[in-house]
């Protein structure tokens, strides 16, 4: 953790403070349309960014179809769809 590059995560945090509020319940992954066929998991994606695995995270995002079901089920009310769009911007 000493040499982790958090640039992307910190940039994301400025416009989306709720990236810090995930409790890793897995609702987003469970309901994900892409998650049943691919490795797509927003919960893990957030962790990847916090561990400096930006390239992996961006590769994972490619599976997302922006259906927004994850945003509907999140018990913390995280605007997941917007965050995913912001990461790729």
């Amino acid at each position, binding site marked *: 953790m000493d040499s982790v590059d958090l640039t992307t995560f910190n940039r994301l945090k400025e416009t989306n403070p709720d990236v810090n509020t995930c409790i890793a319940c897995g*609702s987003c992954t469970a309901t994900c349309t892409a998650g049943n066929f691919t490795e797509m998991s927003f919960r893990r994606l957030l962790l990847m960014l916090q561990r400096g695995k930006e390239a992996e995270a961006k590769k994972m995002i490619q599976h997302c179809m922006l259906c927004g079901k994850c945003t509907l089920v999140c018990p913390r009310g995280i605007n997941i769809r917007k965050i995913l769009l912001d990461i790729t911007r």
Partner: protein
Amino acid sequence: MKENILIIGGGAAGIEAATQLQKMGLTPIIVEKSEKLGGHIAQWDRLFPAFHPAKDVVGQMLDNVKGVDVRLNTEVADIKRDTDGFKATLSDNATIDAKAVVLATGFDLFKAERKQEYGYGIYNNVITSLELEKFFRTGKDERIGNPKKIGFVHCVGARDVKVGNTYCSKVCCTTALKQACEMKEVFPNAEVYTFYMDLRMFGPGYEDLYLRTQKDFDVKCIRGRVCEVSEDMDGRLVIKAEDTLFGKPLKMTLDLLVLMCSMEKAKSIDKIQQQLGIANNNDGFMQIKDTYLGMNGTAKDGVFVAGTCTAPKSLPDTIAEARSVAVEVFNYINNK
């Protein structure tokens, strides 16, 4: 000292507060809207963590409260502050003059149908924790049958901004594990799963219960929140969650799903609360005077609170608060 103390609510908090106030020489009067004392706990079969029958505990409390003036099937219709304290008019038109008021009005169970994605009221085999207790008590519930695979969902209506309840309801984790063990007792060949976000075994003996759940009852605890429930062609339930520790989405077919419903502040007291000027917190529970030292006080002189009207609580927590409210009221009356 023959001062009247009006206690609204005849559940665990109200009964225990009345018992102690009577011993202190004051005159508690319990006003209870239902037809009997005991509140929610009287609907329970056995209590965690020791599996004691609720009726024994409630029975003992009812013995202790003997001699107290209890008004059943009665609500406080109206309450006013006067120079001597409070004047309450009851639903049967009787009036009570009291020096102090204790709100011990408890909780409503979260209405499970509000989490529509869990299918309560839509699918036959989805039941609530309270309904399961009734099954344990009476042995009857035609929805239960002979289940081979049973699931429990934690945090239904708790820690969930989508229903407006961001708080932890405190007792559901332990209740879920207790009920999971009991299901294994009734159906030894069934597989039992619980789906949790965090297991909050905060009290004495609770972690031991968790260990027994794993060791003696072979209940499987899966860390992941159930996000969808549907029904298959055979009428069995299909649930979706993420097995977060394994890092994979999970689909499971179940014969019975039990929803661990949270506590919300009882709404029936709203009008009286307003008349007394007692506000709620953002979480909908009543505001107390101070988080650390004033858990029984309110912003209003002479109005006290105890039990689950201020936050979700276990029975021992509630009893402790009921005893401490008696001390607070006693000191208030003596220092007046």
